[in-house]
């Protein structure tokens, strides 16, 4: 993991209210474990992992954790710069976290236009195992996500459900974007040439 720290291809920012499980999500993705043996690693604040996209090309994903505490809220937008994707987290067993979601997304859209937004409903295992009650209905989430045209996934950092899928889809889309940009810039260059000739 250390070797990836210097070069990062895709910057992903994780935002969301406090204690929605941002750090656990990163922990699950990077080290494939949950709280039980978290002591082994330091610094889940920044981490990087290499992923292979659908098309077979490898990309190093750098994940930036952000502070969800209200008092540092105003600073979080500094992290958005040049982010290829942002995962906005909310706790499906906590209604207030869902309400905070909108402000995060609007802020993101405002600051970093080109940043792809993913909504992540965390702590799915609590609902599945019946420990806590779902406060945010899935239909409502889907409706909202469709409305603002973002992808929504419900994950569980404890079981690892949908975590890898979430990051995999980010890498796939980013690689797809890259090729589109490359193509368009190529076309532009050709157009320029033509113009130059004339």
């Amino acid at each position, binding site marked *: 993991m250390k070797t990836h*720290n*210097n*070069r*990062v*291809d*895709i*910057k992903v920012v994780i935002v969301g209210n*406090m204690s929605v499980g*941002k*750090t656990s999500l990163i*922990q699950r993705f990077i080290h494939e474990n949950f*709280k039980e043996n*978290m*002591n082994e*690693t*330091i*610094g*889940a*604040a*920044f981490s*990087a992992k290499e992923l292979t996209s659908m098309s077979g090309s490898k990309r190093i994903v*750098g994940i*930036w*954790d*952000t*502070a*969800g*505490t209200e*008092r*540092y*809220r*105003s*600073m979080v*937008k*500094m*992290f958005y*710069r*040049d982010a290829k994707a942002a995962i906005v987290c909310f706790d499906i067993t906590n209604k207030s976290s869902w309400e905070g979601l909108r402000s995060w997304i609007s802020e993101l859209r405002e*600051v970093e236009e080109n940043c792809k937004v993913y909504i992540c409903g965390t702590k799915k295992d609590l609902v599945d195992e019946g420990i806590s009650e779902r406060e945010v209905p899935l239909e409502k989430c889907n409706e909202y996500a469709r409305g603002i045209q973002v992808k929504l996934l419900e994950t569980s950092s404890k079981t690892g459900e949908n975590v890898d899928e979430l990051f995999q889809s980010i890498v796939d889309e980013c690689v797809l974007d890259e090729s589109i940009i490359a193509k368009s810039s190529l076309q532009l260059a050709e157009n320029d040439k033509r113009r130059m000739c004339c």
Partner: protein
Amino acid sequence: MYTLKKASLRIDESYLKCKNGCDYYGNEEWGGYCSKCHWERKKEARLEVVERGALKEKQQQSPLGFAKFEEKKRYQSDKKAKLLKVFAKSPNSKDRGKPESLFGPETGEAEAVHAEYQELFSKVGAKVETDIHKCIRSFYKKLLSDAENPLTSIDELSERAQNFYQILTARLDEENCYRGLSSEEKEQLIDYAEKYAMTCLYRILFCPATTTDEDKDLYIQKRIRQLNWVSAKHLDCGIDETSTEVHDLVYSSITELLGMDSTKAPQDKLGCVMRCCRKILHLMQKCVGGPTSADDFLPALIFVVLKANPARLKSNINYVTRFCNASKLMSGEGGYYFTNLCCAVSFIENLTYESLNMPEDEFNQYMSGKIIPSGTWESALIMCEGMHLINENLTIFGDLRKRHAAIMMEIEALKDEMIKFQDEMLERVSDLRENVPLELRPIREPMDIDAEDPAIADLPPPLSPQIVEERVQQPRPRSPRQDSPEWQIPSYPDEALVTVNYDIDLSDLSGGEASQADDQPMHHSLDTGSVASLDLFRTSPPPLPPSNLSLLDSNQISPSLPSPIKPLQSSSSPYQGFSSQGWQIPSIPCDTGTSCFEERSQKHLHEQGQQQLQHQPVQQNNVPAQDQENSLGVKILGNTLEALDSLL
């Protein structure tokens, strides 16, 4: 990036609009104007400055010119060698009319940077090195000329630098000479270019006069000093202020952060931030007991920045933001930490009573220095410092005590050993004294001679008489009563010893009856020499030792003694002959030998007896008594010899 962090959510939007009334947002940093209006205003201001500066320069031209000239000269003399090295690859660049003093001070450091990457260049080859230096030099010249123009803002320079990085990256991918390099090497090359160029340009680009960086530095420094009462608790930061381990980590992270100002290249500054942040992550992991999330990390970083109060913080941040390779700053680990540092600085700048969750009055009182919270980091630090020192000293003392005790024990052991050694030595000396009394030394001498005897004993006993006969027969006809030729024989290594031997023989024979000794002359002669026989003499009644002593006496006195003694010595001749010429008679039967010997010895003894009778009175006063005793001793000796013989 730093433009973003200036924006504050807590400020009303209308306040944020440009002062000029255009629809764009204004910025505090730009005096409340939007970027467009700000640049226009700035350009005007700068033009004014230039005009004024030109006027001033005219007025002060001569002194300034001279100072410059002197400076130039100094650099030329000091750094000529180094400069030559640097310019060796492009001799044209030397005479471009550019002041060398600009390049001069950084030359040494640039060399150091080059030396740092020596390994890389040895790998990629000279062609690549030349090309990359060409790029750096052209960029350097361009930027230098741009910087000289007061109309170029620092942001334009920053843009140039970023362009340079991008162009260089593209060049590394396209140029022929870079083909075949790994992406890692390319990255290192870009890194090198950045480091080299920025080290050379540091003086111009860091905290330039055209910006307000310096004012901001002073402001933030003052602000942090005002906020020195803020504790970890105020920031909701989980730093455990009582643990010494955490303390040490806080200290070392502060040190790393302070080191940022002393480095020149942007990536080095970034490296300082990275090391500082890694230490903070480490210490937060210790405090929290799990992986550090951004929620733990950011407050801790703010806390460290507040306690460190780094010099020229804002200048450093701006310098890195402007001139560090953007691709590195935006996505890597260093970028993450740097962003966090910017957040921390922004938080400190915009810190209000709300951000610390405390009443406004209290906050204001703290800020004005009216109250000082008792539990501040500083006081805790001072207390802990003392405790820390005490603890440290105590451990040192404990260690010393242990070592002292060990030394004392060793000393005791050494003392015991010395006493033991002394006792042992004394005991051994006394033992030696008892075992080897000094008085016996002179008596021992004959014993040394005895040591030779065993060699003689190896000879077959019956043979020896023959020798004696032969030997004796020869001198007899010539000089029966003469002092003997043997007396003069030089072949004997030690005459004295030989005579001693004979004396013993003689005393035995002369003292006792010849018949007793006659039976086994060989044995007899041998035995007299042996220790046993001597012991016998010694243990035998007191008169005997005198006879031994007499031997010594005879040795000593012999030269001054009158003639009667001489036969004594002459009598030694038969034995001498025997011992020295024993090898000559291998085949003569034993009987003849013994008979011969008997005859001879009897005759000889008779003579000797007479001689001794004459001689002894002169030599010893108690001759008759001694004679008797001697005869007694010889009798005993004879008996023992017989017993020994039978045993043999």
